[in-house]
């Protein structure tokens, strides 16, 4: 009986290790995400971001730190490059890259970068996805 139990425990451990260290897209303790802002709670300063370029999109709830910057990173309008935006100007449906870190059960955003959907990196991530190379997956 002990033998069977130990085999089950070892199998579960191996299985859980495999799950813990298999990278199939973004994970809760990643420190950046790329995707579309699908929901904005302006009162609570929380945004929801649904990832792109992954095999299965995931939705993450991101709490904005007081110091969280919102900045245009890539744009068709050269005069807008690097422009800082106010939270009120942030719109749902925006393609964004968010940097921050998890702490005490919350994910704290430090920077939201607004992206141009026609930028070369977005096109690259799209074409890679079509070729079966998904962002954040185990290579």
């Amino acid at each position, binding site marked *: 009986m002990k033998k069977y139990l130990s085999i089950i425990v070892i199998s579960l451990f191996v299985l859980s290790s495999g799950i813990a260290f298999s*990278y199939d897209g973004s994970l809760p*303790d990643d420190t950046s995400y790329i995707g579309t802002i699908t929901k904005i709670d302006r009162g609570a300063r929380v945004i929801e971001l649904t990832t792109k370029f992954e095999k299965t999109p995931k939705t993450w709830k991101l709490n904005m730190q007081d110091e969280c910057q919102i*900045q245009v990173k890539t744009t068709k309008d*050269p005069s807008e490059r*690097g422009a800082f935006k106010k939270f009120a100007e942030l719109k749902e449906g925006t393609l964004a890259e968010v940097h921050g870190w998890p702490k005490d059960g919350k994910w704290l955003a430090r920077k939201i970068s607004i992206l141009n959907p026609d930028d070369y*990196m977005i*096109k690259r991530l799209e074409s890679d996805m079509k070729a079966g190379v*998904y*962002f954040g997956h185990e*290579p």
Partner: protein
Amino acid sequence: MNKKGFLALILAVLFLAGIAEARKTELTPADQRDWQVIAPQDSDSPLRDYAMLYEAGGHDGNIGVIGIPSMKVYRYIKMGVDMHNFPFSGSNAGNNNGTPDGKFLWVSDKGADAVIELNLQTGFAERILANPKPFGIHHSAAMSPNGKYIFLTGELSGKMAKMRVADGATTVIDVPPAPSAPDYPDASKDGKYVFAGNYYHSAVMVFSQDPFKFIKEIPVGKNPHGTNFVPTNRWAVVCDKLSATQSVIDVRQLKVHRVIPVGAGPLHNQPDSYGKYNYISSFVSDSTCKVDLGRMQMVDEFPIHYRVGHNSISPDDHYYVSQNKFSTGLFNPTGIVFAINFEEQDIDELSPTYGKSVKIVPINGEPHEGRQIFSTTIQRWNTGTGGDLFAKGYELGDVKVSFDDKNTPGRSLTKRPSLEPLHLAGAKRYFIPRDDGKPGVTQEGDVTVVRIKAFSYGYIPRFIHVKKGAKVRIILTNIDKAAGLTKNPDVTMGFLPAGYYGQKTRIDGVRGMSGVGEFIADKAGEFEFYCQQFCGPLHLEMRGTFFVDPPGGTASLSVGDYDEMSKLEYQLGDPEEREFITGGNRLLNTLKEGNEPAI
């Protein structure tokens, strides 16, 4: 028509059709990638630049400010002796550029063994964070995610330090087992780890940020240098300088995940802000190597001119700057010390000039770290709004940035210092015809003469002892025949003892003549000296030790006038400026471990 005639007719028709196809003038995508482009390009000398490259200028003692994409040099800001690495204040969230709040950058001064704070808004050095003596800083590029701490690598003493930038309170720990040479560090984006390459061990040393302690070492390729976390924090990328590989460390498992062959002599990483591509400077192969971290393989390589060291990437991932160490044959001579160069490369895959060098400009000094920032972060203070800097600060969108840090030593709401730390103090330097005297220490009258031969990559002798109080004359002779592995004919050698004497002597050794430095050895101690002029892939390992022995004894890292030197800490033109110095031995081990969260 017989069969042969029919075949000949078909062939003739196909031949003519082929000619007609070949004569078509329609541009193919391949044609459009050529140099001959009509559409205006970003880099066509814009009057305003959308980003700024800040670079630590090495032995010129400056921080250089360069426009992106124009590559125009805007300013050289006087900082110290030998500037190496820096983070922008704010957070390390993102790639190497981090998330700057636009207030400061903190640059390591390897020559003076200190960290100097540059106020980005005033554009002047504002404070000196003195390292506890002896320390022997090299890089200090690692900042915690919350921006409150910087991690310093004591390459020359085998130590690491965590410093609270508000007041300079520092904890120093040893890097076991000795000898260790922690050089290029980075801090993980989640506040857990600090990684630092250790070329004596061919390993990456792992420390926890809070509490600050050594955890383990991870064996990587031979002689690791640039070590950086990617923005997702999933991987840390390590340049295995002598293995021509990139080790990719799995940050969750703390072990090497993949080893990727890259160009020879990889030195530094620039991951893009997505963590998709990592751009590597490869010194020996004279190239920028582009690694796809999605596929875990090198996918492109761009030539550079020549011998790249550090590198930087624009905040929108559209331009990459190869910070080259040699300009052999490219520019006019400027004396014994030649101008190195920065080469801007277009990395926008949809651009007609993708992969090409779009600008190459001569640069002063021997730059190390380069980081880029959107120009919108630096405010326009010179049109009557300067007063706002003191109390009101500025806004980055909704984020209010204030200089209200009155609780910081040496700071107040009504005073923003403008320091000019001395590059060299009490130093007498000159050149003489090549000196072929026997290397070693001799007494000539009342002068202790130290003859040192410098070559790629070392010194003869490596250990030098002089007596405290001696009048010292260092004679440095470059004995390289063809500049070591790289064969560049214009290699200059250097001699710079880190710490107290770093401000008294900094000698350049060109082939054919000898450099001389004279000073009084008035403080006892052990001082590592190094080559401040980049001379090849093992330049970093070109080290020796200068002992100033106290009466009746031998100096060591524990026997010397360290407390006395710590009171001086850094030499400034005006003694009253010392109020802007903090840290040093006075605040050694005052940072309470386990009580100082990094996020």
